[in-house]
């Protein structure tokens, strides 16, 4: 018998499908094989390759928290062949999952710190995993602030959870939509995420910032945080490189000497500074 | 050839003429062999040469491709474009060694129910004699380790 086939996915049954926003869905996946379910463990920040059998594999983060046992969740937007294949699936259908891959958000080093989450659109899923992980260990962290924006109210994902975070006294949620994206009933802010962060002017003291979003959000938010005094080693992000194997071999995610699927996807701004701007 | 071989014939037909012609074949109670699988397209001008290639790759042993006679096209010039395309494609396939005799090009009008039946019967019998197009159907597994 030869070695294990590192490209062989686990079979997962879709337990639940949530429509998050136009073309954006969340799958709750449960292992078909009980032994695999038992053996499976991951840490927040890790990702996987999800198979729509017949169309291929796509890379998404594991959007659920490791503290929630028995299932994993992923959130994706229908943009290509595989995500369209996944979007056709119904509850009970089988998809594939390979993982967990990549490194982690080091939340065990953030005890007693304030956490500042800054994200936009469907970049919330990777940070949502961290948020729920920290909320399930709430007493280990001081203030938790979440700045989350989307193009319009309808484009906000995890709408139910946003309400839950809003009502929680121990979470400071600042929700915003791009100008023109608001609805009459909208009570949150209106403005681009970097602008809202500037208005919020969060203090860098004893604070870890997690930033995740489209290149434009990263481009505007990072210098702002630096200006506010955040150290490059305390700003974290997760990269979205093109990936195929997820195990550091196929070469796609190679950026500088780093393989984003092995050495990332989680990087501090300081680590990003050592990589060539090729991500 | 064991007599159990029943060829799969794929027919790409235009909606306005040949499909209607085939319909007429049925209403005229004219019998023809059931090996043909009819695919209806708006016009022969819509029939991309890759559809033929995919048909062979997915197990067709013979192909019929048929539409309105020149000057009868519902869209005026679809069949004229198709004709030019077929002229180039047929030569290219032949040059590459693909068995172009497995592909029958034809004009069948909406009134030619009998011609449709005759076409299908003749093609089916011919392909049955030729046997399955295995050399093409094996391509997907050749060169994979």
């Amino acid at each position, binding site marked *: 018998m030869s070695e294990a086939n590192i*490209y062989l996915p686990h079979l997962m049954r879709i337990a639940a499908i949530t429509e998050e926003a136009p073309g954006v869905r969340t799958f709750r996946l449960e292992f078909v094989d009980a032994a695999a379910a038992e053996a499976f463990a991951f840490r927040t920040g890790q990702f996987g390759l999800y198979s729509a059998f017949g169309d291929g594999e796509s890379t998404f983060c594991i959007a659920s928290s490791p503290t929630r046992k028995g299932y994993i969740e992923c959130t994706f937007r229908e943009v290509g062949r595989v995500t369209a294949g996944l979007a056709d699936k119904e509850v009970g259908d089988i998809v594939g999952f390979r993982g967990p891959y990549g490194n982690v958000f080091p939340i065990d080093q953030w005890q007693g710190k304030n956490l500042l989450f800054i994200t936009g659109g469907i970049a919330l899923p990777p940070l949502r995993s961290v948020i729920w992980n920290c909320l399930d260990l709430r007493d280990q962290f001081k203030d938790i602030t979440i700045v989350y924006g989307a193009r319009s109210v309808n484009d906000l994902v995890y709408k139910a959870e946003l309400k839950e975070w809003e009502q929680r006294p121990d979470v400071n949620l600042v929700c915003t939509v791009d100008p023109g994206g608001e609805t009459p009933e909208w009570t949150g802010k209106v403005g681009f995420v970097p602008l809202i962060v500037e208005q919020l002017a969060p203090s860098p003291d004893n604070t870890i910032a997690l930033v995740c979003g489209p290149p434009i959000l990263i481009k505007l938010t990072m210098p702002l945080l630096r200006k506010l005094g955040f150290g490059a080693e305390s700003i974290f992000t997760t990269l979205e490189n093109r990936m195929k194997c997820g195990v550091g071999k196929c*070469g796609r995610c190679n950026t500088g000497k780093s393989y984003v699927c092995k050495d990332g996807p989680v990087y501090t701004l300081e680590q990003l500074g050592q990589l060539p701007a090729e991500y | 050839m064991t007599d159990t071989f029943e060829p799969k014939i794929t027919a790409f037909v235009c909606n306005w003429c040949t499909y209607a012609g085939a319909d007429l074949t049925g209403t005229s109670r004219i019998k023809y062999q059931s090996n043909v699988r009819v695919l209806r397209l708006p016009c022969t001008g819509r029939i991309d040469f890759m559809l033929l290639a995919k048909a062979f790759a997915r197990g067709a042993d013979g192909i019929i491709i048929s539409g309105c006679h020149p000057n009868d096209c519902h869209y005026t010039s679809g069949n004229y474009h198709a004709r030019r395309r077929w002229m180039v494609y047929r030569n290219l396939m032949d040059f590459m060694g693909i068995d172009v005799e497995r592909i029958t090009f034809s004009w069948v009008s909406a009134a030619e129910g009998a011609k449709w039946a005759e076409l299908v019967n003749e093609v089916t019998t011919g392909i049955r004699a030729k046997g399955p197009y295995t050399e093409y159907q094996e391509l997907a597994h050749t060169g994979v380790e």
Partner: protein
Amino acid sequence: MADTYQLSSASLDALFTAIQGDGRRILAPTDRDGRTELNPVRNPGEVARDYIQTTMSAKAAVFPKVEQLLSYTLAKGQVDLVDPEPQAVPTVVFGIRPCEAGGFAALDAVFNWDTRDKFFNARLDQLAVIAVGCTRRDEACFCTSVGGGPGSVKGSDILLTPWSEGFLAEVLTDKGRALQALAPKGFIPAPAVDKAALLVDVPAAFDQPALTAKLPALFDAELWGNQALRCIGCGACAFVCPTCVCFDLQEEADGQSGRRLRSWDSCGHSLFTLHASGHNPRANQGARWRQRVYHKFSYYPDRYGMLGCVGCGKCTRACPVDMNLQEHLLEAARS
């Protein structure tokens, strides 16, 4: 010191026969239709005579251009997944050059970094390499600039050096000794011979460690864009290269059954890093050409402690527009 023998042409015949008797195929350079490529051979007579190298490399013996990683059948709510056993044919590659023999280590470094690739390992296990030292070279060769040489033993199980009417044979590994054991009488202890004198001279062209140290600072130099103006963005260099390991995973399904195939890929192609959003971190050919150089001469040493290039020059010979790697590396070293 490896055990060195002399091997006559007749003994080589016997070795070929014994190897095939042991159920192994022999791949060697052959001259057919004006091309020198690796093909199955039965006896040394079929092996090409006067060649510098083959066009395609021997990597295909361990990393085929297309291989099936898994297959499945689909039914409503049910997937039957099949994990295939790799079909590793016991193989002896004969007659490749020492540079190329050194390439397998670079492949192994990636395929077994942290996780192990069972397909590659199954084939590498079944492979033995009998390289033949170089008595000819051309302007594309630069093995001595990257730690190799016309008589380098790295990566070979047996290294033959053309000598008088037969060969000097250095048996270097267990696999080499296993081959020797198949036809032991042919291996006669050899007198001390100056091997270098029998081989072509390949003066080193550039100081590779200095170049590797210099590359990070050269990342944003215009040099790469200027060189790549001529590059047409095909994959010829990557696909002939004995150390290029990048691959693509492709899904092919037909109704109720499907398979996942691995095939060679190239960082020279624009799609290689294209995001679903349309963003492409390497949007122009200059960045892609630079990636080829940096991956082999900067990232490989950083990550795997070895180079991703053996200086064989296959990429230069195969390139439709003569992107001469050695020449462009020299230009970078001097800039």
